[in-house]
């Protein structure tokens, strides 16, 4: 951490889990129509959700607004959608993003299409929090399926990587009138992520006063002139670390966290690419048909003549996730792989 980034004394720093909890509590206080519904979220003596984000909330809001469900993803997603249609603002929870496939019909055929089919008369205001990412859990507990949903008109897709934006975006998502899928990386929730993300401090300053961060807006995490790097979640932190290393070789990376994948903040990316002339995209979702492909296509359509080198994508290889760490590390984009892609992009 550079001196400029060091926390000011008295600055309030939260983990992503804490920031999410605070956002939910604030929104539940603000609007009684907001409620939680999911598996293992409020059982007394239980886990407070699979990643502890809801710990303490039942004490304040009670079991009427924190509803524990059977292991029935179709029913709980359907119930959330139905309640949203009736004007409630549910925050359903499925524990792991991998289980979204259990309720694809509800999400893709119902939630995403109700507004359109009703000629704009109906809304489905819900926020589905989806923990993603590899953590030695294997093929069915570590996927990053955000790109499936980027393909669905009617849904919004958010990907948060730090506490400040997690809180601001979650509050915006709860107040949004369309269904929002909110992807969070399991290794970034709290202190545990710190070691695994290479010793970075993953807490961020979260002001005491209320604030919102808009859906559909990207942030430039590091300014630079040589190459634009767009990355989410762990790949974002690996890109930032690679950028520090490359700075010593004179490669000055501009690193952007898109934060929202649908709708995508193209203008921020286009402006950056017009400045740097080079683009690298990194995500933990698999390569083929990943959101990086969509971004690459848009940049090619709008900024082709600004590009000085082919666009490079770094993504998980197109295989399911293995458990053994040595294999898992091969599949997901490592800092070294991201660094090599940036170097290659800057050679051309």
């Amino acid at each position: 951490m550079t001196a400029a980034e060091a926390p000011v004394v008295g600055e309030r720093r939260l983990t992503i889990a804490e920031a999410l909890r605070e956002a939910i509590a604030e929104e539940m206080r603000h609007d009684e129509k907001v409620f939680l519904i999911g598996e293992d979220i409020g059982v007394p003596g239980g886990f407070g959700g699979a990643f502890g984000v809801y710990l303490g909330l039942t004490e304040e809001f009670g079991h009427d607004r924190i509803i524990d469900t059977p292991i029935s993803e179709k029913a709980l997603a359907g119930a959330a959608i139905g309640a949203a249609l009736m004007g409630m603002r549910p925050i359903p929870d499925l524990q792991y993003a991998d289980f979204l496939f259990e309720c694809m019909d509800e999400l893709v055929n119902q939630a995403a299409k109700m507004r359109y089919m009703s000629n704009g008369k109906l809304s489905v205001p819900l926020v589905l929090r989806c923990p993603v990412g590899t953590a030695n859990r294997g093929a069915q507990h570590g996927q990053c399926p955000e790109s499936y949903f980027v393909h669905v008109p009617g849904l919004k897709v958010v990907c948060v990587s730090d506490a400040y934006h997690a809180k601001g975006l979650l509050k915006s998502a709860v107040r949004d009138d369309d269904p929002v899928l909110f992807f969070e990386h399991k290794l970034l929730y709290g202190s545990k992520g710190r070691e695994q993300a290479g010793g970075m401090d993953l807490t961020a300053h979260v002001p005491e006063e209320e604030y919102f961060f808009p859906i559909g807006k990207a942030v430039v995490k590091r300014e630079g002139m040589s190459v634009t790097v767009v990355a989410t979640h762990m790949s974002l932190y690996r890109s930032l670390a690679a950028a520090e290393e490359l700075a010593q070789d004179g490669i000055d990376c501009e690193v952007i966290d898109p934060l929202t994948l649908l709708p995508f903040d193209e203008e921020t990316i286009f402006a950056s690419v017009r400045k740097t002339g080079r683009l690298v995209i990194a995500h933990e979702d698999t390569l083929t048909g990943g959101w990086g492909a969509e971004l690459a296509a848009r940049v090619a359509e709008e900024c082709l003549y600004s590009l000085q080198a082919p666009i490079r994508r770094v993504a998980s290889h197109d295989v399911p996730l293995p458990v053994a760490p040595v294999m898992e590390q091969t599949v997901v984009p490592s800092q070294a792989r991201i660094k090599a892609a940036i170097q290659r992009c800057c050679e051309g």
Partner: protein
Amino acid sequence: MSDVARAGSIEPGSGQLTADVDATHGLDLYRRMQLIRRFEERVYLHYLQGELPGTLHQSQGQEAVAVGICDALRPTDWITSTHRPHGHALAKGVDLRAAMAELYGKATGCCGGKGGSMHLGDPSVGMLPAIAIVGGGNTVVTGLGLAFKLMRTDQVAVCFFGEGASNEGAFHEGLNFAAVQHLPIVFACENNLYGASTPFHQVSLVPDVATRAVAYGVRGEIVDGMDVLAVREAAGRAVAEARAGAGPVLLECKTYRFAGHSRGDVKGYRSREEEVLWKERDPIVRLRARLAATLDAGVLDDMDAQVEAALDDAIEFARQSPLPRAEDALTDAYATVISGGSAS
């Protein structure tokens, strides 16, 4: 069947434990349950010591279900399992060394280190890689049964699942589909009272999963899942019916997991009193007491020592085994490698 009723049909002093199980057979059931118990306990220790990657869902307390049911199967029969598969794997005959090595993430593991704890399995002994999606096996198993029916084999498939899974649509669709197709399947529910932290009574107004069989026109049966002889007997009946083409059976085994849901679970959602109550029904202690009536205590102690030695060997094997090669991660997504898919 209660112990009393069972004793009534057995010649006293004959060494028979039940009509189907003599003392030698009983000793084998004991060995397999003890192997699972000690496997789980020792694996947990090594997990805490940082030797194993990933996470663990363990089955201490539920050994009688895995062993009692798999004992009624032939090697050519198949099982599907869940996120809690260690007991099922060992009971169905997955090689001990290969199972241990899989948990260690080694190349010699039964899934080459690709599967890990939650996907333990081995097709060569009739076990699919365990399915860690709750209810995932309940529909897939119908295809196993359908294939057996279409190919006119007399194989049977068993689907292990928890009571929590019985609230998934997949449970209902799988059971109904198997029923109308008269498939050779036993749906084996391990009702251990909790799905993760959630008590079953909070998510089902029907306390017995077996009751749900009525809705699909299949036979449901409840058995004491802490009594391996009772499980063996009920499983024997269910498997025989399925094999004979009489359609699926829903067998609910009332049981309890002694450990937490997964590593690091402090079990704040259940009482210590309840745990003690179930501990008193420990299936291994119970069978040991039954066997002690006919067998020398020395025989049982020897068996314990053999189990420990086998585990020593398996752990050593796992530790010494090579890690997978990094590039092995990129094989097996398809029958033959397709191009692309790994840019940059």
